[in-house]
């Protein structure tokens, strides 16, 4: 997890228990806290309460093995920004982190730029080289997801789960995903000569300018 998130010049630190988390938070300010509820020496909610009491501004995403509504509501009430249930894909985590981060950053700059691709997050518009590209909702979500995980290989299952939710369980039949990726890639290629969306050995896709 650390390796995955440490790219893009982010600094990541980790600890494995409640005491360590409180100690670290007491010493340093972070932009972002990823909190597992099930810690060996107590419930992760305590960290949230600690942050709330100290009036800290860290964004928090809770990860938990329990997909229970009560835990979710409790976490969000105490001040978490999102709640992610195990098991999840790292790509999903990263896209959530960025989404939370954008929300926290405020409304001054609500657009996402990747080279010549510019995404207006409020209007859900995509412009490439100044021309607007019309995307379906799924294609738009996919592009956002790919850019959030730019430079990383994203497994097909991760994309499918992000777009359709993991309740829709099609058992590794990703034909439907393939056609969406194909359409998105074609629309991007129509507007720019750069082929950012690359297929990786049948395992997934990678959005990269390298």
């Amino acid at each position, binding site marked *: *997890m650390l*390796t*995955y998130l440490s790219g893009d010049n982010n600094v990541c630190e980790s600890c494995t228990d409640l005491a360590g988390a409180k100690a670290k938070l007491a010493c340093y300010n972070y932009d972002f806290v990823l909190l597992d509820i*099930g810690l060996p020496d107590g419930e992760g909610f305590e960290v949230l309460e600690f942050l709330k009491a100290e009036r800290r501004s860290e964004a928090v995403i809770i*990860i938990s*093995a*329990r*997909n229970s*509504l009560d835990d979710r509501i409790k976490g969000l009430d105490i001040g978490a920004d999102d709640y992610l*249930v*195990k*098991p*999840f*894909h*790292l*790509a999903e985590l990263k896209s959530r982190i960025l989404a939370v981060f954008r929300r926290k950053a405020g409304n001054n700059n609500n657009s996402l730029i990747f080279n010549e691709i510019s995404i207006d997050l409020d209007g859900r518009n995509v412009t490439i080289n100044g021309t607007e590209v019309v995307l379906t909702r*799924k294609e738009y979500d996919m592009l956002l997801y790919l850019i959030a995980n730019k430079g*990383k*290989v*994203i*497994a097909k*299952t*991760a994309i499918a789960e992000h777009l*359709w939710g*993991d*309740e*829709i*369980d*099609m*058992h*590794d*039949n990703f*034909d*439907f995903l393939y*056609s*969406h990726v194909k359409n998105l890639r074609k629309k991007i290629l129509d507007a720019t000569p750069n082929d950012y969306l690359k297929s*990786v*050995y*049948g*395992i*997934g896709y990678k959005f990269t300018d390298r």
Partner: protein
Amino acid sequence: MKLASHYNRVSILVTLSVLFVGAIIYFFAINNIAARLLDDHLSEEVSELLGYINARQELPNPVDFDDDQTKFIKTSQQQIPTRFYDTVYHSPKKIGDISGRAVEGKLSFKGQSYKFIIIISSESAEYLVQIIGIITLLLMCGLFGVLFLANKYFLNGLWRPFYKMVANLKSFDLASPEKFTPADTQVTEFIELDAAVLSMANRVKSDYQNLKQFTENASHEMMTPLSVIKSKLDTLIQDDSLEQEQFDQINDIYSAAGKLSRLNQSLLLLVKIENNLITETEELDMGQLIADKIRQFQELSASKAIVINSKPAGKLVKVSKYLIDILLNNLFSNAIRHNVSGGTINIYLTEGQLTFQNTGATLALDGDKIFDRFQKGNNSEGAGLGLTIVKNICNTYNWALRYEFTGDLHAFSVQF
């Protein structure tokens, strides 16, 4: 046949035969006693007769003995033993034959031997026997009837706690938290049985609860390692030095991990539904939900070129959004997954029923088993819990779920 009927049959048979044998013995005994009384009477008559002859030195006239008849017959026989016997005679006062008791013997009078016969009427004695017989018969009938009624009603009452227990056992639901209500009884055997049943039910229930708790905990505990596997895989595929072959293997691991986590989630969901943990409900428009789901599944159905025909009517249901979502997801997933390329799905929604019809394998499924856990088709990639979950959700809302195979269409219908 009920135990009471068995018991009644045996007791009636025994009572009947005892009464029958008793009646025969009784009849003979009474007859015997009556005959002996008559014989005593006759013996008196004989001694009176002999006394009369000794005193008067003449044979008495027949009239002297009112209703009785006395005959003297001259005889040359030396020996006539005295004997008593039943006979029939004519009475001058009454018309017809009269049954009587007679005695005959020998007497000597003035050197002449006579055979005397004295007959007295036994009618009054017979009358007595009849009366006693009738009274006895009535008594027996009464006794018999009382016994029968007592058996019928009293025994039924006696068995009532037993039937209560049977009803309890029949309605015993492992999953429901309801406790047994003990049968109200004073009978030691039933109290013991009730206690045994009660303790068994409670033990089974607590075992079942433990098992469910175990399933839940095990499933939760599996989520963290699964998460590690997924994260490690996500990190692993970032490695540029990997070859196609390794990616193929990683793909297989992805799919296995995905299957495992879906299985886990399904198990957790089942536990939640069975424990009635999902209670919040809201009023939802089923037709609208189906229309949404069709949109949500359009990419999946389009990839198999499946045509979805839907005739949704507005139908309001008061359910949990979460559960109804899963119900529709599973029905849709099944209808698409087990469909053929270019097949169709028909969805009918009426006031009382929701039906999903889909083309697919040309053989009907085993309607008794498909809703069981881990029952799945030979080439199904699923975990085999989808329909179990659907069934459990339907049970939660007291809906009936049925499967039919008609004209090459598999149909699952939910009756509200």
